[in-house]
């Protein structure tokens, strides 16, 4: 059985996240998959994320007042989408939401408010009872092209992930040729800054491409079969909270190597939708042996390895398999100590590889970083040059 998937967030202009942090952990402990969107989030960002993640419900934790308006706004945005089944909205805010407020909110379509002092188990029980087995079917073709149509396809693909992928899907070197969307895979150890880098690339995409062009992000987080998971990459995204971006988080559900069993299928669905110019795929933080996109990197058009400069103290360079396979190697956090050493070491390694790999240095957490500009050029326009190795 696939886990219950919900989205949680704290409304705009509100940073009270202590309650939701605890509640997230309780949900996860009880086998629920939680996509956490973070604090200070607008109703539009919340509704968009919920649709793209195809969750059964949204849990909001609100403290800074205006909850009647805010919950109402989220309900309205969801209703406009004519979702089937509708995404339910629940939440809490300690003593700031009165019983009288809750009555008004219920009248407006909110499903459940938890008042101050509610035991944590009661919330878990509510989710288990109400959302344990919500049946989900594909949307009718009339919805084709919409986010909910696509995201439901992804849900159905992802939930079949207990089964081995079909042979035709794994040997999809051929499938790569039919798609019109470019797939860029980003991998690397945890803490390298992959999510930040993706968000910064998206910012540049939004600026440089026409307003009708969209990009997709497929992001992986580690999870174990039959237990919950926190899918938290969305929470640290700034620019990707945008109507021109379709982002989907998937749990690996026990798969090692950085991806999920359903990755291949999800990628195909995204690519074949023809809605996107680019798909950015992020693996979970990987170990030294991982080659998540395959040696022939059949899953992606271009693979990027993102490394923190201080890897040397943790793993020896010789042992990182991806260095021989990636098309582009990025040393991120170039401000940290050791960046120079990292660059020199990797440079000499790829020179001996003689595969035409590119090496770039970025500082994704810096605004308008020129290294990220170069990476963007290289990946999105094919014109940029890195520290290209002699051919």
């Amino acid at each position, binding site marked *: 059985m696939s886990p219950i998937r919900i989205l949680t967030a704290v409304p*705009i*202009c509100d940073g009270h996240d202590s309650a939701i942090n605890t509640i997230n952990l309780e949900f996860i402990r009880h086998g629920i998959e939680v996509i956490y969107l973070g604090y*200070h989030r607008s109703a539009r960002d919340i509704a968009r994320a919920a649709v793209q993640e195809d969750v059964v419900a949204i849990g909001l934790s609100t403290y*800074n*007042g*205006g909850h009647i308006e805010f919950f109402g706004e989220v309900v309205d945005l969801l209703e406009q989408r004519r979702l089937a089944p509708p995404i339910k909205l629940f939440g809490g805010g300690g*003593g700031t939401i*009165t019983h009288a407020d809750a009555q008004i909110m219920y009248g407006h379509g909110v499903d459940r408010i938890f*008042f101050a002092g509610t035991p944590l188990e009661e919330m878990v029980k509510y989710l288990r009872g109400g959302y344990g087995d919500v049946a989900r079917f594909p949307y009718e073709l009339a919805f084709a092209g919409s986010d909910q149509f696509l995201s439901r396809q992804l849900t159905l693909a992802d939930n079949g992930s207990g089964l081995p992928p079909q042979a035709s899907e794994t040997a999809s070197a051929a499938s790569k040729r039919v798609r019109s969307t470019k797939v860029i895979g980003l991998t690397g150890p945890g*803490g390298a800054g992959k999510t930040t880098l993706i968000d910064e690339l998206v910012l540049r995409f939004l600026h440089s491409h026409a307003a009708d062009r969209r990009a997709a992000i497929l992001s992986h987080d580690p999870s174990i079969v039959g237990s919950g998971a926190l899918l938290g990459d969305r929470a640290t995204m700034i620019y990707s909270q945008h109507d021109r971006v379709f982002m989907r988080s998937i749990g690996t559900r026990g798969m090692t190597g950085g991806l999920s069993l359903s990755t291949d299928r999800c990628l195909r669905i995204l690519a074949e939708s023809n809605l996107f110019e680019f798909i950015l795929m992020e693996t979970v933080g990987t170990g030294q042996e991982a080659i998540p996109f395959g040696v022939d990197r059949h899953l992606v058009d271009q693979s990027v390895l993102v490394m923190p400069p201080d890897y040397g103290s943790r793993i020896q360079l010789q042992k990182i398999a991806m260095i021989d396979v990636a098309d582009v190697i990025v040393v991120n956090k170039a401000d940290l100590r050791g960046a120079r050493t990292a660059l020199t070491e990797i440079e000499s390694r790829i020179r001996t590889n003689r595969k035409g790999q590119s090496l770039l240095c970025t500082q994704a957490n810096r605004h308008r970083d020129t290294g990220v500009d170069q990476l963007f050029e290289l990946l999105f326009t094919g014109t940029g040059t890195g520290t290209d190795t002699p051919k």
Partner: protein
Amino acid sequence: MTPLGQVVLAIEEYRRFVVSQIRKARTDHEFGQQILQKWQEAKARIGTTVTPTGLRLPRLALPDLDEAGEIARFLCEEGLPGEFPYLTAAYPEQYLEPAAINSKENENRRNHEKPFIEEPTRLFAGLGLAEDTNARFHYLSRNQRSKRLSTAFDGPTLYGVGAAADGVFGKIGEGGVAIDTVEDMERLYAGFALDQPNVSVSMTISGPAPILLAMFLVAAKHRFGPDVGPKLRGTIQADVLKEVQAQNELIFPIEPSLRFLADMVDYSSREMPRWYPISISGYHIAEAGATPVQQAAYTLSNGFAYVDYFRNRGLDVNVFGPRLSFFLDCGLDVEYVALARVCRKIWAIGMREVFGGGNRAQILKLHTQTSGRSLIAADWHNNLTRTAVELMLACMNATNSCHSNSADEPFTTPSEEYARYAAHAQAILLEESGLFRHMMNTLPGSPGMKVIGNAVEEAILEEFREIEQQGGVLGAVERRYQRSQIQASGHMLENQIYDGVRPVIGLNRYFDQGRDWPEVRMMRTQKEQKRLQLDRLQDFEKRHAEESERCLDRLSEVVDNGGNVFEELTRTVEHCSLGQMTERLCEVVGKFRPMV
């Protein structure tokens, strides 16, 4: 090693010094005599006081010591009030009423409308629009000798978004006051003589702090003339690091946020010498779930990180050091018996030994707030008692100013009624009861307080060592160290409450009230007021449409070419709204990437 590592070494060194002083006092006859003499002199300086019941008491209670070694221990480990290492108190006298309140010459001081002392009471308030909060300030300070106005801003203001931003309408004026423009700022403190020494203002805001302080300064100039800067007294929170660790209101990335802060500190130390441009805050860290030790350790280490940062900017520790102040939480956990005292000591040693701070820079000046999170909705009148206990702990730790929470804290911005009870709680403790008004050091010095203090001190040092391991404060921040620790403690706290390990009366035991919704007066902002705020903002932006773009361009330029951004803001605020300025600054320096 970062400066924090040096602080750890300095404290270890100081402990060895104390031991050597004690030994010396016992073995070196001449030194022993000096100590005894110093002690006699200190005792001789203490005045006496007579209580209303006729009891004669010294104005300072000192331990009953006549052996040089033990005296040396007291002087080095605790110190006389107002003397290094300031464990006992920051100043020689706090909370004490004038010596002879009953005597003839004090006849005219017996004004029943005002307290005898300069009271530490500083109640945090903010609701609705500027004029609503202004009315609350007038109400709260009507009986005060010193008018200490402490301002709570609403969510949109804290996040630097204008009232007109998409989806924020419902939050205008909720939980704090809505301020969009310099004109709102003028309304906010109308009727208060900001140029007088008995009026001070505190602004609890960090993300857009430089913008708000610029608005405040300019609004004051409009009212009191261009030379008012040096007369302005007050504090602005402006604590960037605790926003990243606990309060989640940072707007710009850490680096530019620190730069804007340093620009502000630089400017205010020159032009507003009576202003405290940063309030290094543990309150939010504790309220987000941290243990008392974590609160103290992260707050102090943040403080040292600021000092290091400002010093590297070329600012003089003896100029900005005395303008730093602290803000701690006081809850019901046993650590609070001695927590703030220990903080004063650690700060003093660190500032003296590592940063070369003189006396005034060594003193940790403290504002305390009783714990909001300890107050709960169930059987909520019990919150009066909780706050009273916490207040007593705060005063035992000799806090310099204090906010006591209202009993309706779990529900709403306080109603007038409960804000009054909260203020009266302080008056009852400090003016009505005899605990603090006759004698300094009435309660400290018990074996328990010492044992707790020592345990707390060692635990704080242990946290410092861990942070140092992570590359110092900024390195640890980058790795989410403080955040993850605070969150883990917050999770533990809630689980302890639900498991009953942590008794909470009315919640996990003694349910004498049902689960019915209690009668509480909710202080909400009406739709019409919210609309009025919007109209005012739009009207301001329209009136200044011509100049605003030019001002914003000049602001961008100053940011880009490394000038003092705060100084430029004092011009920008004349023509631009808060939302316009933050938006422009985000374009130039980027947005803070949320840490979760």
